C-alpha cells in the first residue's frame, strides 16, 4: 500500500473547518480560488434531522441528557471532548493540561458560548503596559476593520458603551436581562463593577436571507437549526458553497503532515481517511492550517523533512511554546428572594444576557491583567442532575434536609430558579515553558505521533483566581444571596483556579512576531520559514486578553486571507 495521490492540484488546502478554517474557506473561495477543506471529523449540519438536537426534550433520551458520551451533556453539539477514544495525549513533569477537541465540520464553533468580544487596544500591547509577556506585532487599528466586517457578516448583539479597552462594534440589539441577571446587576453595581449587555454572536434581528432569527430556546450549545447563532459550517462554509465557490470537503480526514519539496516549500498534505484507514495526499499551491492551536502545532512538528528537520516552520524552536488557556474560577450563590418564583418561559438566548467586562485596568492589584464575569441561572429545562440534593438549600433557611414523600415536590419547586452562578474568565501570561511537543513514545490509532503537554500556572494566575472568588462572594452577598460553593479554596487548591485547558481557549503555540528567532509566523500569520503556509487558528496569538478568542480568530483569518489573495495577485507566492 502506498499513499494515494490525487492528480489534481488545488489552489489552497485548508486544514480544519472551525472558526479560522471556515472564514478562510469563505474568503478564499469567494476570491475565486479552488479550495480543499480537510476536516478530521464527519460532516455536520444542525438543520439535518439526523443530527439535530435543538428542541429535544430530556425524556427523548434514556439518559436524559447526561454527559456519558459528551462532556457537556449528550444534547451538546460537540463530537469529541476532553478524551477521544483512539486519540490520546500525554502530560509531563506531573503537570496538567486538558485538551478539548471537537471532531466535526465546524469544530468547536458548534457548541461554544458565542461570547464574541473584541480585543482592545491595550490587549495587543500589554507588555508595554506591565512588562510581562510580549506585545503583538500588530495593533487594534490593524484588526479593527476586520472586526467591523465580521460583526456585519456574522452578527453579534451587544451595546455601545464607550469603554476604552472594550471596543464597540456593529451590534445587533441585546435581549432584555433575565430576573437573576437583575439580581446580579444589583450585587455587582453595589461594588462598582460595571454590568452591560453581553456580546454574543446570536441573531436578535435579521441579518441576511440565509439565516434565521433567534427564537430564544437557550440551546446554542446544540447548534442552531435555523442558523441564528454562529457556527462555522452554517454561517461560513455552507453559504460559501451556496454562492458557487469551488470547495471540495474532505471529512473524516485526519491530516498528519504538510508535504514539502526539495526547496522547502509546501506542496500539499497527507491525511488518513478514517473510514478506510488509508493514506492520501492532496496537492495545493498554498496550505492554510486551522486545525486548532495545538493540532496545528502537532501537524507542523510532525512535518519533518530534510529542509525542516525540527518540523515545519520550527527553525526558531517556538512551535508548541507559549501555549496558554484562559484562567477560570467559579462560585455559586443561593438567593432566598428567588424562592417560590412565578414560573414563565425564561430560556432566552443560549447564554447570559448581561456580563461584566474587566474593570480593573487602572487599579493597583496583586496580579497582572484581568478577567470578565459570566453569569448563569434562571428557570432552565431539567436534565440529568436536576433534583440532585433537591433540598440541601434548606440548610440556609432552617428546613429539613433529605427525607422522602411529597414534601420533596414542594422543595423542588420552592428552590427552582433560586441559584445564580458566576464564572471568571481571565488572561494568563503566555510563557515559553508552557508548551506542547511530540511525545516520542506514542502514536494515536491513525499512527500519528501524539502531543505531550507541559503546563503550570504561575502566581499571577493563581492570585487572579483568588480575586475572582473573593469578588464573586461579595457580589453574591450584595444580591442578598448566600455562597453555596463551600469555603473559599486556599493556596493548596490554587484559590479555585481551574485546570489549564478547561476553559477551551488554547492559543499561542505558533505565535506571530517580527523576529523569526522568537516567533513562528509573521504578522500576516505566514510561516517565517515557508512563504506558502499560513496559520489561521488561535496558534498565532501572542496573548489572549480576557476575551474569548473566536472573534479575533475570525478577524485575523479574514485579514490573512486578504493578504494571501494580495500576494497571489502580486505573484509573490
Amino acid at each position, binding site marked *: 500500500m502506498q499513499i494515494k495521490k490525487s492528480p489534481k492540484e488545488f489552489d489552497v488546502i485548508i486544514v480544519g473547518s472551525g472558526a479560522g478554517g471556515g472564514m478562510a474557506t469563505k474568503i478564499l473561495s469567494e476570491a475565486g480560488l479552488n479550495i480543499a477543506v480537510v476536516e478530521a471529523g464527519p460532516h455536520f449540519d444542525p438543520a439535518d434531522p439526523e443530527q439535530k438536537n435543538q428542541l429535544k426534550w430530556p425524556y427523548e433520551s434514556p439518559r436524559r*441528557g447526561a454527559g456519558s458520551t459528551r462532556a457537556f451533556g449528550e444534547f451538546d453539539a460537540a463530537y469529541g471532548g476532553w478524551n477521544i477514544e483512539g486519540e490520546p495525549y500525554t502530560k509531563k513533569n506531573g503537570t496538567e493540561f486538558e485538551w478539548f477537541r471537537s471532531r466535526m465540520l465546524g469544530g468547536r464553533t458548534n457548541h461554544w458560548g458565542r461570547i464574541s468580544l473584541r480585543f482592545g487596544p491595550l490587549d495587543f500591547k500589554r507588555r508595554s503596559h506591565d512588562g510581562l509577556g510580549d506585545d503583538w506585532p500588530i495593533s487594534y487599528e490593524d484588526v479593527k476593520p476586520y472586526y467591523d466586517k465580521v460583526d456585519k457578516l456574522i452578527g453579534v448583539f451587544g451595546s455601545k458603551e464607550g469603554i476604552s479597552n472594550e471596543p464597540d462594534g456593529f451590534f445587533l440589539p441585546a435581549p432584555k436581562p433575565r430576573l437573576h441577571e437583575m439580581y446580579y446587576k444589583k450585587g455587582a453595581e453595589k461594588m462598582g463593577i460595571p454590568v452591560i449587555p453581553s456580546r454574543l454572536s446570536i441573531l436578535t434581528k435579521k441579518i441576511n436571507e440565509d439565516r434565521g432569527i433567534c427564537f430564544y430556546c437557550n440551546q446554542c450549545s446544540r447548534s442552531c437549526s435555523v442558523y441564528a447563532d454562529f457556527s462555522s459550517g452554517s454561517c461560513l462554509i455552507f453559504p460559501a458553497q451556496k454562492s458557487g465557490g469551488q470547495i471540495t470537503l474532505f471529512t473524516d480526514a485526519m491530516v498528519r503532515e504538510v508535504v514539502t519539496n526539495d526547496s522547502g516549500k509546501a506542496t500539499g498534505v497527507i491525511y488518513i481517511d478514517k473510514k478506510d484507514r488509508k493514506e492520501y495526499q492532496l496537492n495545493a499551491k498554498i496550505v492554510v492550517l486551522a486545525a486548532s492551536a495545538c493540532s496545528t502545532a502537532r501537524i507542523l512538528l510532525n512535518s519533518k523533512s530534510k529542509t525542516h528537520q525540527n518540523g515545519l516552520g520550527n527553525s526558531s524552536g517556538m512551535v508548541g511554546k507559549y501555549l496558554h488557556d484562559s484562567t477560570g474560577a467559579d462560585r455559586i450563590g443561593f438567593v432566598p428572594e428567588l424562592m417560590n418564583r412565578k414560573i414563565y418561559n425564561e430560556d432566552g438566548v443560549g447564554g447570559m444576557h448581561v456580563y461584566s467586562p474587566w474593570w480593573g485596568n487602572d487599579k493597583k492589584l496583586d496580579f497582572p491583567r484581568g478577567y470578565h464575569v459570566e453569569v448563569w441561572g434562571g428557570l432552565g429545562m431539567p436534565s440529568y442532575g436536576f433534583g440532585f440534593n433537591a433540598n440541601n438549600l434548606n440548610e440556609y433557611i432552617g428546613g429539613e434536609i433529605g427525607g*422522602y414523600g411529597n414534601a420533596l415536590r414542594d422543595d423542588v419547586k420552592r428552590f427552582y430558579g433560586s441559584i445564580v452562578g458566576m464564572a471568571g474568565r481571565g488572561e494568563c501570561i503566555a510563557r515559553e515553558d508552557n508548551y506542547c511537543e511530540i511525545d516520542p513514545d506514542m502514536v494515536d490509532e491513525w499512527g500519528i505521533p501524539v502531543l505531550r503537554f507541559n503546563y503550570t500556572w504561575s502566581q499571577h494566575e493563581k492570585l487572579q483566581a483568588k480575586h475572582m472568588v473573593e469578588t464573586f462572594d461579595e457580589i453574591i452577598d450584595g444580591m442578598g444571596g448566600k455562597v453555596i460553593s463551600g469555603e473559599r479554596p486556599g493556596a493548596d487548591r490554587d484559590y479555585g483556579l481551574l485546570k489549564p485547558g478547561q476553559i477551551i481557549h488554547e492559543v499561542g503555540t505558533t505565535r506571530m512576531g517580527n523576529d523569526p528567532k522568537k516567533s513562528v509566523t509573521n504578522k500576516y500569520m505566514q510561516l517565517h520559514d515557508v512563504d506558502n503556509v499560513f496559520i489561521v487558528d488561535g496558534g498565532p496569538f501572542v496573548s489572549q486578553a480576557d476575551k474569548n478568542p473566536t472573534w479575533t480568530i475570525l478577524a485575523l483569518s479574514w485579514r490573512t486571507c486578504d493578504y494571501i489573495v494580495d500576494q497571489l495577485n502580486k505573484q509573490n507566492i
Partner: protein
Amino acid sequence: MMNRRDTIKSLLLGSVAVGLTVQGCAPKEDSATAALPKAENTPFYGRTPDEKARDKRLHEEIFFNEHELETIAVICDIILPKNDDFGSATDAKVPEFIEFIMKDMPYQQVPIRGGIMWLDSYSNKNNGKEFKRCSTEEQLAICDLIAYPKKTKPEHNQGEKFFTSMRNLTLTGYYTTEMGIKDLGYKGNTPNVWDGVPEDVLKAHGFEYDAVWLAKCVDQSKRGELAKWDADGNLIS
C-alpha cells in the same frame, strides 16, 4: 412461559428498551419480535454512529435482577408517591431509567446494587424479612433511619449514602419526564420571542428596566427587519 428476562421485561413496563432488549437478544424469534420497535426506533435525536451503537448495546444488556427491580420500585414510590395531580415515580417509569443509568454509568452499579443488599440485610436482621416484604410502616421506619443526612447514626451511614443516591436518581428521573416537567411547571423549550421578565414579576422583586438599558435592547416588533447601521455602528433599522 415467563423466563427471567421476560419477567424483568414486564417489570420494565413496555418501554422502548423492552423492544430493544428483545430485538437485540433474541434475534431468531422472528415472528415474536417482528412487531417490536427496531433499535433505530430509539427516541430520535442527533447521535453519532458510535453513540447509536453504544445505546443499542446498553439497551440489550440487563443489569438488575427481578428482586432488585422490585425493591427499587418500592423505594422510588416511597421517595415520590403520587399526589392528587401527578403520578408516582413508578408511574413515571423511574425504575427503568435507573436500570439504564446503571448500564450507562457503570460506576453507579456497586453502590446501588450493594445498597439494596445493605437494606435487605438490615431488614432481615431487624424484621426477619427482606425490605420489599415489610409492611409500609416497617419500610418507613427503616427509611427514617437513613433519609435524613444530618440525623443519621454512624452505624447507618452506608445506608444513608444509598438512600441519598436513590433520592437523587428518583427525582432526576421523575423531573426529566413529561409528567415531571409538567409538575415542575417549566415553560420553555419552545420557539418564542423573549421580551423580558413579566412586568409583575419584576415589580414583585423590586426591579424595573431603566430607560437607558431598554434603549440598548431589541425592539421585537422590528426583529424581522434587516439590520442596518450608520458609519459609527449605530443601528438604524
